[in-house]
């Protein structure tokens, strides 16, 4: 009789499903109970927290800010990572993969350390400001700490190597000969990019953009450390709601909203792309 090795997958499957799904269900469940004071909760199932969320401009502003920052980070990530990914993908493979590995390895360094580096570089008496002032671009040191700009830079640093990895693998699958065919049949460099490379790497751009967007939506460290308590994205607000205000129900609601928004945006994007692909008949 043949051994049924397939069953071996069951324990890890149950374990990860439990961790992944159960935790989410838990906070979605508590989001329907109203907070009493000092961390105690009402036992009646109701929508009070959701009503509070959608009527309080504080929460709505926070959601808007989070979506805006995440979208900006996704777009900036694309802009920053695309040319790098393209050059790496078109290098002799040995060099390309080595450099990519270095870039990706840097993402294993905890974001806390990287942000510390950022704080030093962007600090009032850091090298960046010193250089800017010496060249005469700015008169006073510009600060990134405690500003949306700072948080965006931090999130970019956090996510850009993932973007690089995804774009690299997609661009690598576009045969060189397609570029040459476009070029030889009359397309200038930017037309080759516009008509061939860009459309063919679109799925990768959407994928990379979504992953970065999702990461940024849930990113707490960058927003908390670089925002300095002034940039209130939802993850920061959730942390405060749990630890400072001990309103677990409300925190559950905020988390559920993040989950819902992320799901919705991802679903829409995937639908859009698959519709484009289907039209191609491939």
């Amino acid at each position: 009789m043949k051994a049924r090795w397939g069953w071996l997958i069951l324990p890890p499957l149950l374990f990860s499903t439990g961790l992944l799904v159960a935790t989410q269900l838990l906070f979605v469940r508590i989001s329907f109970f109203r907070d009493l004071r000092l961390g105690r909760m009402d036992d009646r199932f109701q929508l009070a927290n959701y009503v509070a969320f959608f009527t309080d401009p504080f929460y709505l502003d926070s959601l808007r800010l989070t979506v805006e920052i995440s979208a900006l980070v996704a777009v900036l990530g694309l802009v920053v990572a695309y040319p790098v990914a393209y050059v790496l993908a078109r290098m002799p493979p040995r060099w390309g993969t080595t450099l990519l590995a270095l870039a990706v390895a840097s993402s294993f360094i905890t974001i806390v350390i990287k942000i510390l580096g950022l704080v030093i570089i962007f600090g009032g008496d850091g090298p960046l400001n010193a250089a800017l002032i010496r060249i005469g671009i700015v008169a006073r040191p510009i600060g990134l700490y405690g500003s949306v700009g700072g948080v965006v830079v931090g999130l970019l640093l956090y996510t850009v190597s993932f973007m690089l990895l995804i774009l690299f693998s997609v661009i690598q699958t576009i045969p060189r000969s397609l570029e040459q065919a476009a070029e030889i049949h009359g397309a200038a460099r930017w037309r080759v990019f516009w008509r061939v490379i860009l459309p063919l790497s679109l799925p990768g751009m959407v994928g990379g953009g979504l992953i970065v967007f999702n990461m940024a939506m849930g990113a707490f460290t960058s927003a908390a450390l670089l925002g300095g308590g002034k940039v209130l994205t939802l993850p920061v607000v959730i942390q405060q709601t749990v630890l400072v205000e001990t309103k677990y129900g409300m925190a559950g609601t905020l988390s559920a909203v993040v989950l819902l928004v992320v799901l919705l945006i991802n679903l829409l994007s995937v639908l859009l792309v698959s519709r484009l692909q289907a039209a191609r008949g491939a």
Partner: protein
Amino acid sequence: MSSVTLAGVTGRYGDFTALDAIDLEIAEGEFLTLLGPSGCGKTTTLRLVAGFLEPSRGRVLFDDEDVTHRPPNRRQIGMVFQDYALFPHMTIADNVGFGLRERGVGKAAIRRRVDELLDLVRLPGVQQRYPAQLSGGQRQRVALARAVAHPPRVLLMDEPLGALDLKLREAMQTEIQRIQRTLAITTVYVTHDQTEAMNLSDRIAVMNQGRIEQLATARELYLKPRTRFVADFVGKINFLPVTVDGYAGPDAHAVGLGTAFRVADGAGRPRGPCLLAVRPEQLRLSPAGTPADGCNALDGRIVDVRYSGNLVRCEVEVAGGTPVIVETGPDDPLATAGTAIRLAWAYDRCTLLDDD
């Protein structure tokens, strides 16, 4: 349509010289094939004409125009790639019309021209399909249509039939020839398949190690190869070690394997050792002891016989143990292993080559 001239062109990849100061002239409307083993420089030559590679020395001319430093998109070239390189995200119509659109041709004109081109390559009605929905041979036709859409000055083909099976390859050879003749486009074709090269080309440049070994018609290459490499690469051939020892008018006398030979038009060759080259099908089997009047003769014994339908291939051992391959008719009564025979061939059906 233009003539193409490569003047002293050297092509390098880093330190590696892929092409060593070659001169090549391709006449207007000519079908020229670059033939050679992989790494011989044929693809590099094509890339230089296309403009994907700039020569480190020398010039590339279209007619009398120097295009050495002109980027590919402004050279007015059409090209068929080995992997077809059709744009997977565009319809067949958009693929074929690509060059026209890039050159600012109007929409209606593009549509008319695309219809016309798809008729030319005998693939009407596929305008709205995508490359993934076509077979290999059909994609090849689309690639050809795209390459000639905006009538190119030069058409380049980089092993375009390499990915097709034998039957389809033969059919496509006919198609390519028909279309090239119809449009009378100067064509540079790259292949490592000598049969394909001989079937298609006006002239063939046999390349080896970054140089052109011989540039000639298929017939001349086959009958009068100028180097051992060409003789060996184009068709099958036997080499007999001989020494030139005298001349008779335009002919040369040579001795080797204990026999004297005469080679027509061999007077240009200096005295000394060289190779006598003779094709297997030029050798006739005759019974041992047959007088050799008016032709070369060599005694031997058949050691192996292989039947392949239209001919019989015999391996003959001659003096000194040298194996000689002979191709004869399937009904040749002498083609039996073990038979002692005499090989005979005409003076003008062999040639003398350097032993390099």
